[in-house]
């Protein structure tokens, strides 16, 4: 990485550690992400991927370490303030606002102070209303506008649409970074295939994506760089061909050869 690239760094994580009682969930994890890239975080179950996202987005306080976003220290800030700065996230366990129709789910981010500050809730026009913008965003993300899908109760949507809704909720916030916590898990191959262009479109729009994934093949099709975690430690980082050949990554996923 050349020195000139440093100006481009949008988020930098330094020495994050977190333990729950005796369990060390994260040990001195550091990484930097450049604006506009897709950065993947991989690792087996329980390796601390979701905890890392929670620490960065403020849902959990790390025991040590710093997170800075565009040069501002955001460590220990409450989650809604971090989101207000433009850091959106999805949740691994999808929980839409069950009692609301799908498009009304987007009213929450569109009503947020961030959307009002940026004027994002008005869409293109000067006097838009949130419902119209919400349906526009849902269409962008693959809900067929003329079908009844955007108007169905969120609790009745199939899994694929609920995943998209999670992502739509982030997009509605007009964020600079989206942390995607396993957006592909639980989806069929064809559903994933239809999600991939969406991810690429977000990248084209200049949004930085940090994707935590279990499914390596899908991730490697879109990610520019990848980091691997195992037992809370960063074991490898680089482009995908390097990381996948790394001895420690292979061990983490497949087990070591010597018994």
């Amino acid at each position: 990485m050349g020195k000139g690239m440093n100006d481009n760094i949008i988020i930098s994580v330094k020495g994050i550690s977190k333990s729950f009682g005796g369990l060390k969930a994260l040990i001195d994890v550091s990484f930097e992400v450049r604006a506009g890239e897709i950065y993947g975080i991989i690792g087996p179950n329980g390796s601390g991927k979701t905890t890392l996202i929670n620490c960065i987005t403020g849902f959990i306080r790390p025991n040590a370490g710093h997170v800075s976003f565009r040069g501002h220290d955001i460590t220990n800030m409450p989650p809604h303030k971090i989101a207000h700065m433009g850091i959106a996230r999805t949740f691994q366990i999808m929980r839409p606002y069950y009692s609301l129709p799908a498009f009304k789910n987007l009213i929450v981010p569109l009503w947020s102070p961030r959307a009002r500050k940026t004027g994002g809730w008005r869409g293109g026009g000067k006097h838009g209303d949130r419902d119209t913008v919400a349906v526009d965003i849902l269409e962008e993300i693959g809900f067929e506008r003329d079908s009844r899908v955007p108007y169905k109760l969120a609790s009745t949507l199939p899994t694929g649409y609920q995943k998209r809704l999670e992502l739509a909720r982030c997009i509605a916030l007009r964020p600079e970074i989206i942390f995607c916590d396993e957006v592909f898990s639980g989806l069929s191959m064809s559903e994933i295939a239809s999600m991939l262009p969406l991810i690429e479109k977000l990248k084209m729009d200049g949004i930085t994506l940090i994707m935590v994934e279990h499914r390596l093949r899908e991730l490697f099709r879109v990610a520019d760089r990848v980091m691997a975690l195992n037992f809370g430690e960063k074991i490898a980082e680089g482009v995908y061909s390097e990381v996948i050949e790394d001895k420690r990554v292979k061990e983490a996923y497949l087990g070591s050869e010597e018994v």
Partner: protein
Amino acid sequence: MDMMRKERIDRGIKVRTEGIYAISSYREILYLMGPRLLLIVGVLVLPLFLELAPYWKRVINIMFVYSLLALAFDFLANYVGLVCLGGAFFVGVGGYFTAIFNVYLHLPIYLSIPLATILGAIFCTITVLPCLPLRGVYFAIVTLMYPLLATRVIEALNILGGTNGITGVDSFPHEYAEQYIVIIVMLLFLFGMRRFVNQDIGLVIRGVKDNDQAVKASGISITYMKTLAVFIASFMCCFGGAYIAHLYMWAGLSLFALDFSIIPIASVVIGGGGTLVGAVIGSFILVPLSEFLRFFGTFRIVIYCAALTAFIVLKSEGLMVYLQRKYHQFERWVKV
């Protein structure tokens, strides 16, 4: 033998009235407005009928206060996710505030009630603020303590008239003023709240109930949303308390009585949670019933409990949910 299953289908008129075409015929307009008009006209002419039964006037006034409290409980529990058992605290604060303004500061009744409602709601919101991070049963238990705490503080410090309360609160200038003020305020709050929960800000508040993590991740402070919700709910209750204080011309410790916390909850259970109007209908049933059962002396509690239990077992969805279903849908038996 064929298995049969009950099928529910929306009535044609319900589907037709969902869009703009609802205004195309009188029948459709009536279908939409009928139930609403029935309620509004019903409660507005009620005081006229009560000329025939003057004893029931006071019961009916209290009934409307209870419907306000039930409305507040339904809003907090089913739209915000805060189960608040401290309704009596809000009532007591409203009552004592109006008594202080009216008796100690000599403000007239048309100033003391609005002031007590607004300042009381602010006071209640600030005092509840520390327990807003609590969720579920923990919030319920802590708020249950608030009216008990207030009683003990007034007793122990012997302030605000101590156990005797504050006497000499002004009464309402006219009997009709007394009745219509609470009816009109109740109607305003009922229809106002129904509108509010479907506004964008109302949807955000409902989002807090469904998934508060996602609301945080959308850059919205859930503490702020909960504070706003508690302010709205305590606003309604404080008005109720201020009204009762002027009705009885007295503000005392019984304003913190558990009845004000519990009967609204029972009303919501009977009327159907989450419908708002169900809470009002529920108190229209419960409060007169409880008064009617006075005839049976202490045995009335048994009858009251039996009636409540029967309701919960037989129609656990709530009266209003049941009625709405019957109104909007028809049922038929089909083969499985």
